[in-house]
């Protein structure tokens, strides 16, 4: 089986700086593909068994999501970035592992819809509630403020940075979506829901949400570094930071 995820394409028009996030995702994906898929017959058989065993047990990834702790940002931007990158690598490894199991269950479940409310659907529910004036823009920013369009592109602003009119456009486009009533991942698992495809599909979104939050924190810290570089007269404006590679930025740390 070939790799069906194509993580190399997951950032649209990546800036030079964001390329390192793409590299993290691709590296994590390759690692899992090597682990579970092989061209050689005997090895392929053994790996198939280990894939099946891996796919049966969703608990390790689910526990990881439940116990995930966000890194508390300090005033030291360089150190924050180092820790956040490690966290991001960890989350992308889980996403790749989760994807492997998801592809396994797809073979048994080609046309059944997911039984779990995904993070995307929850986010749209918030936008609909904002559009219907059940929640304010401030509430929206508190709940899904780290969301961004093309979220792994560091130069893209997060929803908490959007203007009121931009949020309105987002909400207007989504408002007519009829989201079916479904349990959240936690509710589904607590009720002993059995559909593994739904579970792995929902867990992927939860993990991507964690990666999105880490990316939002990375953005904050890169913008802090940009201010330092402006003071040192290395760049003129904050957005110039996205024109450097991650390695180039590391060299400015002195």
């Amino acid at each position, binding site marked *: 089986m070939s790799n069906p995820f194509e993580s190399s394409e997951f950032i649209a*028009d990546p800036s030079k700086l964001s390329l390192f996030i793409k590299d993290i995702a691709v590296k994590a994906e390759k690692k899992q593909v090597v682990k579970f898929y092989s061209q050689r017959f005997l090895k392929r058989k053994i790996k198939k068994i280990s894939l099946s065993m891996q796919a049966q047990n969703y608990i390790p990834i689910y526990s990881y999501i439940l116990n995930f702790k966000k890194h508390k940002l300090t005033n030291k931007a360089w150190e924050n970035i180092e820790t956040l990158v490690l966290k991001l690598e960890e989350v992308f490894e889980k996403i790749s592992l989760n994807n492997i199991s998801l592809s396994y269950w797809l073979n048994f479940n080609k046309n059944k819809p997911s039984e779990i409310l995904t993070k995307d659907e929850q986010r749209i529910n918030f936008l609909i509630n904002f559009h219907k004036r059940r929640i304010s823009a401030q509430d929206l920013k508190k709940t899904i403020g780290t969301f961004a369009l093309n979220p792994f592109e560091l130069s893209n602003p997060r929803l908490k940075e959007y203007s009121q009119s931009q949020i309105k456009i987002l909400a207007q*486009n989504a408002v007519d979506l009829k989201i079916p009533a479904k349990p959240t991942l936690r509710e589904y698992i607590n009720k002993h829901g059995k559909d593994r495809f739904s579970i792995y599909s929902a867990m992927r979104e939860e993990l991507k949400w964690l990666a999105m939050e880490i990316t939002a924190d990375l953005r904050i810290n890169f913008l802090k570094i940009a201010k330092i570089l402006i003071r040192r007269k290395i760049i003129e404006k904050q957005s110039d930071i996205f024109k450097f590679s991650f390695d180039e930025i590391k060299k400015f740390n002195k």
Partner: protein
Amino acid sequence: MKFIFEELISFGKKNCHGEYRILTNPSQILNFKVKNKFFLLTPFLFPDYVLLFPKIEAILTVEGSILSHLAILCREYKIPVLKIKNVLREIPEEGVLTIDYKNKLIKLTNEK
């Protein structure tokens, strides 16, 4: 202009016809206002397009697989997803298309 497609997810087999738009980057959604349903042409199945679902008739993508998160959601909301060759740079950003399911063909025209 005509080109063939491969179905990733499909729900109707009836030929359909309507306006299309090309979106190459999900950030474009922030400036995107449409009244009627449209066919979305995109290089990749970016998950952010879920925000446009109420307006999307079908998605025509150059890259992506049945396991892409957007494809999974499309299946749930009964939005067809078709895989096409990369013609996005050769065609206007807006126009009208017809999907001929029987012959697996997409035909682009300028008339509405």
